[in-house]
């Protein structure tokens, strides 16, 4: 399995990109040439182009863009891991229960999940984030509320198709409790699509989070959030062309990493859908790329 993964150059590239992101996030204080620039102003050095002063130039406060990007990796990574983690923790149990049992309660659960899917994810996230007020915690909350139905729907469909398998029936016949069957028999058999979905979901979540930051709904300044950095750079175009370049590329490479990894994992874990009908819906304005 590992060998097949190593041979898939695209998936390897994805893993490398994510590895770099994690390294940047963990070692930001040591890697950054000017770690103090995250909080301090250096107005004499403001809006310098890339050069000796800084790899990616400096921003409107004189902060080193490269240093701020590194610290931004911490925000992006922690935010998306917590948001996707909670979405999985809500969505998977809901999908399992709704898929395992039949009846009005299952229908109700799934219809409730479907309501969240009935508006574009980005709009729902903007609405929730705006309601709660601009902060990292609220962005995480908004993203979890927005994205949990994707896992619920996936797990529901997978559980329903497993429900009538002989090994599930025999486990039930042997007197296993529903909880035991769900956790020990169903869940391990649907882990692959959940893992693939989670990798691609990370990409979609990061795009949406960046969009929220761009609209000013993320962490307040001077937090080095990538989306917010791009928004700040807008009024300095076309002169400070480097200002938006680095954060944009950081978002791009991160999302690309998770998407490539997801594609590669699908090939390995789920041979039925080999790089096929899975990913889609990327048409949305800014991060619709997450639905099936």
């Amino acid at each position: 399995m590992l060998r097949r993964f190593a041979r898939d150059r695209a998936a390897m590239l994805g893993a490398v990109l994510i590895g770099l992101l994690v390294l940047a996030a963990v070692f930001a204080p040591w890697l950054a040439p000017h770690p103090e620039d995250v909080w301090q102003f250096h107005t004499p050095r403001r809006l310098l182009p890339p050069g000796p002063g800084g790899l990616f130039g400096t921003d409107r406060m004189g902060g080193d863009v490269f240093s701020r990007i590194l610290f931004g990796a911490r925000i992006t990574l922690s935010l998306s891991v917590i948001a996707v983690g909670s979405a999985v923790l809500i969505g998977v149990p809901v999908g399992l229960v709704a898929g395992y049992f039949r009846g009005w309660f299952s229908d109700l659960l799934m219809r409730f999940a479907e309501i969240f899917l009935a508006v574009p994810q980005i709009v729902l996230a903007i609405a929730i984030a705006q309601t709660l007020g601009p902060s990292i915690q609220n962005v995480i909350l908004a993203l979890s509320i927005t994205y949990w139905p994707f896992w619920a729907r996936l797990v529901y469909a997978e559980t329903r198709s497993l429900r009538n398998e002989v090994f599930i029936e025999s486990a039930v016949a042997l007197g296993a409790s529903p909880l035991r069957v769900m956790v020990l028999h169903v869940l391990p058999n649907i882990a692959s699509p959940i893992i693939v979905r989670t990798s691609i979901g990370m990409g979609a979540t990061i795009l949406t989070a960046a969009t929220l930051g761009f609209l000013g709904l993320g962490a307040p300044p001077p937090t080095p959030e990538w989306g917010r950095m791009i928004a700040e750079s807008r009024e300095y175009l076309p002169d400070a062309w480097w200002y938006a370049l680095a954060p944009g590329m950081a978002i791009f490479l991160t999302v690309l990493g998770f998407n490539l990894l997801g594609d590669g994992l699908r090939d390995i874990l789920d041979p039925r859908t080999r790089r096929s009908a899975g990913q889609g819906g990327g048409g949305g304005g800014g991060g619709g790329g997450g639905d099936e």
Partner: protein
Amino acid sequence: MVWLNIVLNRLVWLVPTLLGLLAIVFVLSRVVPIDPARLAAGDNASPEQVAAVRHSLGFDRPLPEQFLRYVAAVARGDFGTSLFTQQPIADDLAARLPATLELTLVAIVLAAAIGIPLGVVCGLRRNSWLDHVLRVVTVSGLAVASFWFAMQLQFLFSMKLAWLPLSGQIEGFPPEHVTGLMIVDALLTGDTEALRSAVRHIVLPAITLALPAAATVVRFTRNGVIGVISSPSVAYQTAMGYPRRLIVWKYVLRMAVTATVTQLGLIFGILLAGAVVVETVFDWPGIGAYAVRSILQSDYNAIMGFTLWAGAIFVAVNLLVDLLQAAIDPRGAR
């Protein structure tokens, strides 16, 4: 009968879905710490005036009652008035629909015109250099933040090269109103100046929206073609000595593109209701930019109106996709 079942099944759930959607947005919009009555009354209003406005707008009633009143009004076709434009929401949305529709149509046509041929070539020449290059391009196209891509396009083509306008839908006088779609109206009335301006304005936002859409279309078309090509029917036709060209044009394409058409339908729905960020960046006077502005200004009635619009589009598009798939593959219909 199958078709009727699908339609009925969707319609039965239409009302509960929209009601649930409204309830969620309603609760969300009323737990905000901002006082809507104060917003509506203006900055200089005295406490008595604010209280009067609160009473006249019904914000002093209990939440469930407010919600029921709202739903009852919607059922009568009254979506309320925007706190900011002071116009009925339905009028606001209707006034912005043509701009969104025009942008969406151009983006979809672009995505299909670029994506389908490329996808077919990739599917027919699997693992060729073009296939590999396009795989990289499509995966990248789905990973770019649209607002950033939009800004880079603006930087290059508007600010540096000065080839295209930075934002907006048209410069100077708009063409005479016929359909509301600027390009169509300009064509119909023979207004070449307006046509030129409208086309120049739509290029950048349309490209921004078309990039991820085209990437999706390429992927689906490619996989569709590969699926059909490796099917027994094509093996049979090849064995019977049919010319490859005939097989490709007559059988493979028609069968392969069905999944793509479904996908285009879904993208159409997503863009009609969700091109919010791109419209905002390009200052496009459509429904998406209106939605973002309403949310940022806590314009409740406008937010609810947009939510209803997005939900209705979602249900309609899904119904359409279900029907399409039932037509293409009757086995799948339940």
